[in-house]
Structures are given as C-alpha cells and as structure tokens.
C-alpha cells in the first residue's frame, strides 16, 4: 500500500515535469520524453520507463553478463502485477538495472501523447468490456488460444521453451503444453525452418520464431525454395500451413545486424503471405489468422512495439490477413504506413491537424498482397499519397507499393507519390545517427505540406 502512495506522489511530480517538457520539447519523439524523465526527474534508477523502448531492445542485446539480472527481474514482475500495467525492469545497455514501480501511471501518460487511440476503431472506451494488455502479451494470448483450440499447433525456435522466448511471446507455453509442443531448437535457422516445413507437410501447424527477423536471412533458402514453392511444385499435394514470426525493424541501438527490415527481401517470394502487426489488437488477430491459414504466413513484429498497451476484446476474433486498417479517416492526403511508423505518422498527424490538414492514415498491415481495395478507395478520395516506411529506399515495401498504386490509380493522383523511407545504409549503432536513419514525425509533416501545396 505504501508503495502505491509513493507511486501516486511520484506520478504527480512527474506529471508536472512531463507537461513542462511536452510543451517545450514538442519535437522530441515520444519515447524521448521517457528518456528525459531520467535526466530531469532525478537520476535515480527508478525514474526511467520506456514504453516498449528499452526493455525489449536491451533485453535482446544484453548478453550473459545481464543474464542473471534478467532472470531475477521477471520473477518479481509476476508477483507484482499479473496483467494490468505490468511494470517491467529495464536493463539498459550499460547494464544498470531499472525497476519501475509506477510504470502504469507513466505509461498512461505516454499513450496520451501518441493520440492514436481516440480515432482508431479498436480503441477502448471504459464502457466496453475487455482486458488491457501489452502487445507481446496479446501475441502470447493469441498463440495460447490457438494452441488450446488445435492440438496440432506447435512452436519451435531458439529459447522459446522454458526461457519463454527472448521477447516473452511464448512465456508460459512450455509449462502448459509440454516440451513436445514448444520446442527449443539448436541454433540453425535454416534447419529449424526446414524442420517446421517438414512438420507442416505431415500435418502439424508449426509457428517458427526467429529470435530476430534478421536471423531469418539464414533461413532464406528454406523459405524461398521450399516453403513458398512446395505447394505449387507438388501440384497441390502438400500444403505448408506454417507461420514464421519474429521481431524486426530498427530498435534502440541494436547495431546493423539486428536492425534489418526483412519484409523487403521476402516480398518477392511467390507463395507466401506477409503481414505486419502494430497494435495489441491486430497482433492477436493476425497471429490467430495466420495460424489458421493454410498458406505459409510471415508475421513481422517490431522490437520497439512489444510493450504497447491496449484494451482488447475478451471474445475470440481474428483480423483478415489481406486487409488494411483505417487508422484515421481524412480528406486531404492518404498516408500509408505499417508497423512502428504508424506511431510516427500519428504523432505527425497531431501536428498536421493543428496546422489545418486532414490526413487519412491507413495501416496497410498486409504487406503481401497489398490491400489495393482500401488503398484505392482512399486514393480516389484524397488524390495524394504519402508512404511512410522503415524499409530502405531501394527495393523496399514502399517502392513496390508506389509501383502498384501508380499502375492502378495513376489517373486519380494529383501529385506524384511521395515515399519516405530509411536511407540505403546499414543502421548505425550511435543513437543520434540511428535516429536519423528512421523517418521522424517532422519529416512526415514537411512531406505532407509539400504534397498538399
């Protein structure tokens, strides 16, 4: 109880500071607000919370020297709070352990700054029932429900078993379903993906986890030559209902090798479907839909989005694998985006609204095939398209999307399609440089202003 009181006290203190900071540092990325807490609200290790920033990213990059601290961190977590406002420990990249006792309050604060939920169809009002959880928990819930529903669903990947997965998406599954259904594999991505394909052909429905999507480059041979092709080359005799999932995208100083955007490499492979989740609602829905699909599906998650919180319905639901999501309807310009860039776009949308623009924001969700129906309707309405993505400029999803829209809706466009993407460089480690490779809200605002002239 005293902890709660202390939490309230600190919360009010931090509200004051944060409002002050918000006004002055409007340009900062919303994740940076949390970072600034650390500096201005006291150098105590308890002050900093990163909504989906530090925890997931640094957990993966903290090697064995923080191994024990990771383990000890999560046991107090479960006793602390079950699902609601789970505060989590942040292990920063320099190894300092931060425990945040008042995470929930501060997280509410962060989510206000993003301002996405007010318009989104999946947003929760207090009148709707449902439960709140974080994105990685939503994925875990979706996976668990499918494993309960269908005994053929199994999970394979590195450290997915008793460790619960590097991002805790498979937490608790090994205890519940046993070692046979949640398989810890040795480190050979090509081979365990191949193993998943073999198991899929004989009737199982494996969910293969890549610890980081970048590691799936090792599995490219199996994904391209076998996963995508075998249904076709066998004349339809063998189906491969496999789901390959994992986190990708630019994290917090994870280095070039762990910041890959593999959707751009995989998009050419015939025979597979690709989807990217961005909210807890669509994460759970897409996970379930992918498992139920008879085609091989690659589900792209993002390292920095795992700790997003949202209220999702209690009942069973799936999201259509080929549908895009209308995040914010508008009139002036269509902004197409997916995964983490959705949040940057929504932040920019706030600024744009203040400046008098009315952007229509669509989270395309389905990367292969594109939902040209939704996109087309939007283009016909607004006549201007801006694509915001995290992929590299050359050969990214944005490049293909530009081509698809130009081919199909050229007559409806009043201006050339603008595509904001990362530069064609490996992602640097230095935080400042890394920030510059990713599209920032300010650039989005400028681009819309340019487009709407």
């Amino acid at each position, binding site marked *: 109880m005293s902890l709660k009181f202390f939490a309230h006290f600190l919360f009010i203190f931090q509200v004051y500071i944060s409002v002050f900071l918000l006004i002055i540092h409007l340009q900062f990325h919303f994740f940076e607000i949390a970072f600034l807490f650390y500096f201005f609200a006291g150098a105590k290790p308890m002050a900093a919370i990163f909504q989906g920033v530090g925890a997931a990213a640094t957990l993966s990059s903290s090697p064995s020297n923080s191994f024990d601290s990771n383990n000890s961190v999560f046991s107090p977590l479960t006793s602390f709070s079950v699902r609601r406002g789970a505060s989590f420990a942040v292990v920063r990249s320099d190894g300092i352990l931060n425990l945040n006792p008042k995470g929930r309050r501060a997280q509410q604060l962060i989510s206000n700054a993003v301002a996405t939920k007010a318009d989104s169809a999946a947003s929760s009002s207090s009148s709707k029932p449902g439960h709140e959880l974080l994105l990685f928990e939503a994925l875990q819930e979706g996976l668990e429900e499918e494993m309960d529903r269908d005994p053929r669903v199994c999970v394979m990947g590195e450290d997915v078993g008793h460790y619960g997965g590097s991002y805790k998406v498979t937490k608790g599954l090994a205890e519940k379903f046993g070692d046979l259904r949640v398989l810890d594999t040795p480190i050979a991505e090509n081979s365990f993906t191949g193993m998943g394909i073999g198991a899929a052909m004989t*009737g199982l429905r494996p969910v293969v986890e890549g610890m980081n999507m970048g590691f799936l480059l090792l599995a490219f041979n199996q994904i391209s030559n076998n996963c995508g092709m075998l*249904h076709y080359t066998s004349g339809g005799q063998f189906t491969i209902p496999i789901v390959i999932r994992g986190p990708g995208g630019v994290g917090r100083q994870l280095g070039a090798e762990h910041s890959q955007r593999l959707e751009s490499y995989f998009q050419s492979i015939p025979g597979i479907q690709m989807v990217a989740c961005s909210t807890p609602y669509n994460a759970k829905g897409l996970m379930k839909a992918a498992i139920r699909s008879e085609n091989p599906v690659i589900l792209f998650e993002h390292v920095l989005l795992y700790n997003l919180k949202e209220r999702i319905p209690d009942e069973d639901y799936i999201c259509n694998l080929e549908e895009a999501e209308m995040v914010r309807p508008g009139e002036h310009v269509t902004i197409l985006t997916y995964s983490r860039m959705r949040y940057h776009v929504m932040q920019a949308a706030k600024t744009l609204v203040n400046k008098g623009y009315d952007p229509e924001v669509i989270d395309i969700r389905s990367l292969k095939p594109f939902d040209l129906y939704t996109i087309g309707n939007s283009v016909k309405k607004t006549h201007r398209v801006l694509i915001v993505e995290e992929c590299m400029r050359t050969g990214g999803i944005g490049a293909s999307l530009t081509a698809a829209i130009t081919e199909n809706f050229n007559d409806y466009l009043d201006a050339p399609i603008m595509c904001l993407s990362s530069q064609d460089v490996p992602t640097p480690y230095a935080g400042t440089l890394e920030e510059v490779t990713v599209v920032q809200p300010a650039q989005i605002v400028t681009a819309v202003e340019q487009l709407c002239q």
Partner: protein
Amino acid sequence: MAFFSKNSRTIINNLKSKAGLSRLMKQSRNCCSMSCLNNTNCCRFIPLTTIPQLRNPDSYSHKKGFLFCFQRFQSTTSEQQFASLPNGEHNQELDFPGGKVVLSPEMQFLSESPCVYNHCYRVLDDNGQLISNSNFVQVSEEIAVKMYSNMATLQILDTIFYEAQRQGRISFYVTTIGEEAINIASAAALKSDDIVFPQYREPGVLLWRGFTLQEFANQCFGNKADYGKGRQMPVHYGSNKLNYFTVASTIATQIPHAVGAAYSLKMDKKDACAVTYFGDGGTSEGDFHAALNFAAVTESPVIFICRNNGWAISTPTSDQFRSEGIAVRGQAYGVRSIRVDGNDALAMYSAVHAAREMAINEHRPILVEAVTYRVGHHSTSDDSTKYRPADEIEWWKMARDPVTRFRKWIEANGWWGSETESQLRSSIRNQLLQAIQIAERAEKPPVNDLFTDVYDNIPSNLHEQEKWLRGTINRHPKDYPADVPV
C-alpha cells in the same frame, strides 16, 4: 574386402580415399593406445542382442579383426562408464553443464581419423554368393523376386528415358544406374506409412511403392495427368498418397524436412518413421549437419540414408570431405550409424530394416551410409568421361552391377531363371515405350494451372495477372504454343 583393380590409378585412389586403409594402418596403433582409452570418447560395443533379427550374433566382427565403435550420448551414464574403466591413473572429474568429464594430465589430441576403421557391412560377395557367417534379415522368395524385378525395371526405365532425352522427347533426365540396390532394397525394408524425403536419385522407392510406369512418364513429359501439374522438371516426382515427398532441386534441404516430419510422427505416436536420402555431396551442406544434430537432440525417428557414390557431379569425395566417409560423422552428432555395401541388396535390406526398428522403438535417428558408385552421368546435362576414365565407369557397370549380383543369388536359390528374365525385360520395355507414347500425346496442363496452388485460393493480384496473360494470348495466338489449352 579386397579392392583390387588392374585398371587405373584413379580407381585405387578413389577407393583408398573411401576406405582410408593406408592412413589407418599408420595411425591405428598409436591412436588406440593413447587417445582411445583415456579419452572421454570411449569406444564401446553395442550389444548385438539389442539389434533384433540378426542371425549368428556370436560370429560377429571379432573374427574379422575390426572393432565396432560406438559411443553413448547420454552424459548421465558417462560417470558409471568411467568408474568401471580399467584405468591405472586416478583421474579427477570435472562437473560442467554438459555432464562429467574425466580430467587427464596427459595432453592428447583426438585423431582426425577414427581410432579404428569403420568397416562396411556386406552379405553377398561379388558373385552373388552368401558370405559365410553373415548376419542378415531373412528375405522371402516373394519379396526377393519383387525386389529383383523392381531393380530390373528401374534399370530399363533409366535406359529408355535416357534415350528419350537424347532423342529430344523429354528435356532432362537423371539416371540411377549403379544404385538400384540402394533404391529398391531400402524401399523394401520400409513400410508404406514411412514418409520418404528423396534427393533426386531415388525413383526406385516410388517404383516399389506402386507408382506406375505411366505415372513416371507423365511426370517426365509434364502433361495434364502429372500430379505435379507440369510444374517441375523431369524426375522431380512426388506422390502424397505413396508418402513420397516431391523432389526439390535444392541439395540437402529435404534433410531437415525429414527431421520435422519425424518429430511430427513422434508427437502423434505413430508406428512410422521418416526416411531421407542424399548423396555424398549433400553431406557438405549446412542443412545436413544441423539436421543430424536436431534429430539427435529431439530424438526423432528418422533414417538418414547417404548414397556415397563417389562423385558430386565432377567432385570426387576426396575433394568433398576429409572424414572417413559419412558414417563417422553420425557419431560426432550422437547418431548411431552404419556403413553398408550399397551394391549388396541383401545387406541394404537388413541394415535399413534394423535401422527402422531402432528408430521407431527407441526414438532415435540412424545414419546409413551406402557405399556405391555412380555409373551413369550426373544427369543428361553432364558427360562424366570428362573427369573420370571411361574404363572405370565400364568396370563398375559390368563387374560391380548390383542387379546382376542379386540375380545370381536368387537364381542360386532357384527363384529365378533366364526365361523369366527375358520375359520381364521385354515386357517392361514394351510397357514403357507405350507409356511414353501415351504421355507424349497427352494434353499439357492449361494456362490457369500457372496460377493455382501458389496459395490455397487464387488471390486478386494473381487473378489480374491471369486475365492479362489470357488477353495477351488471345491477341497474339501465333506467339504462343498451340497445344496448351488457354
């Protein structure tokens, strides 16, 4: 086993590299006395009573003078093993995550070749006569005759299709000449529930399971009746009802698939195993190593059959790897292995039969290395006389033919004769020629089969592309083949 040849040096060198005799002679003494006994990798015998259905367990390998090395993978039993070692030194043990290891103040390296030679299991000698004191699984007359007729059919199938390719009637073909015994005998030892993951030189397994000559021809001609709907090259057969997984051209990718399938069979507690075939070249691929490792760790019932035929297109095994063949690699991963004379149908049958029992009952992977020779070219796009002497090929074809060897044995048993031989051969030949004619005349798959089966249902973008293609064909019919239905 006497590998004598008067012909060319290459043969001797190749065989020596496979057998490794010369190297071993120098090293075996040293190796055994120092590293073998004191090392953690201790040689142990597998009690033969655990291998079922073998006759004459007493007269086993002792008399031949070679040891049969195996190592238990379980680290928990290592402690007891070392406790009973007749070891003069009092060695300490170190407890580390993998188990207990015995320490030793003597520095000794594990030799690059195994301390004792890995002998090759053979039951019939070169003239098709049973070697005395051999253990093998008994084969009934019915099975033996079926095996022989399938081997002969496979030979004729290969010859005729090869000629058809040379005549330009099919675009490509891969022969199995020289490896008929591996194909048929291993298939005979399996059951129809066992799932097969082939490389591309194992049509014999399909033949044994009942794939008709017409179905073979249909696939090679890529016509409408092909189960693959004309989407793959010739010899890329596949049949889900015969549990034979569609051949993919990629090397060794099927090996982890087999492990996954075996895992699935284990989860479902089925009385079946997964079987996968690959060549000596395929064992260099990363997939092979990881799959063996996975199979050992997951304790999956899978049989890995390596057709060590001496050549990977033009690369001889001496350029492919430096280990003593493939079977020794199994030991490195904790997989029980055996080396078999691949041209001896009876030995292959026994080995695969025993392997299957062990795989299913004990939930373990087994590696079978079948030593043989690739008599034909790698494929119809290859001329192997460019990198190996023609007389070497001739010698293996004539003197070492597995089909002839097996025929001598069944003839000696009175189960076969020369009239049945000529009857069989001419009948198969006629059937095949007819099948080819029918397949050649049959319709090709229609254009919309280009777009089906990419996904379970055709998505909108593919619908559009199909419409576009149809439109193009209708506008320019002369630019497109007339015999493909639109």
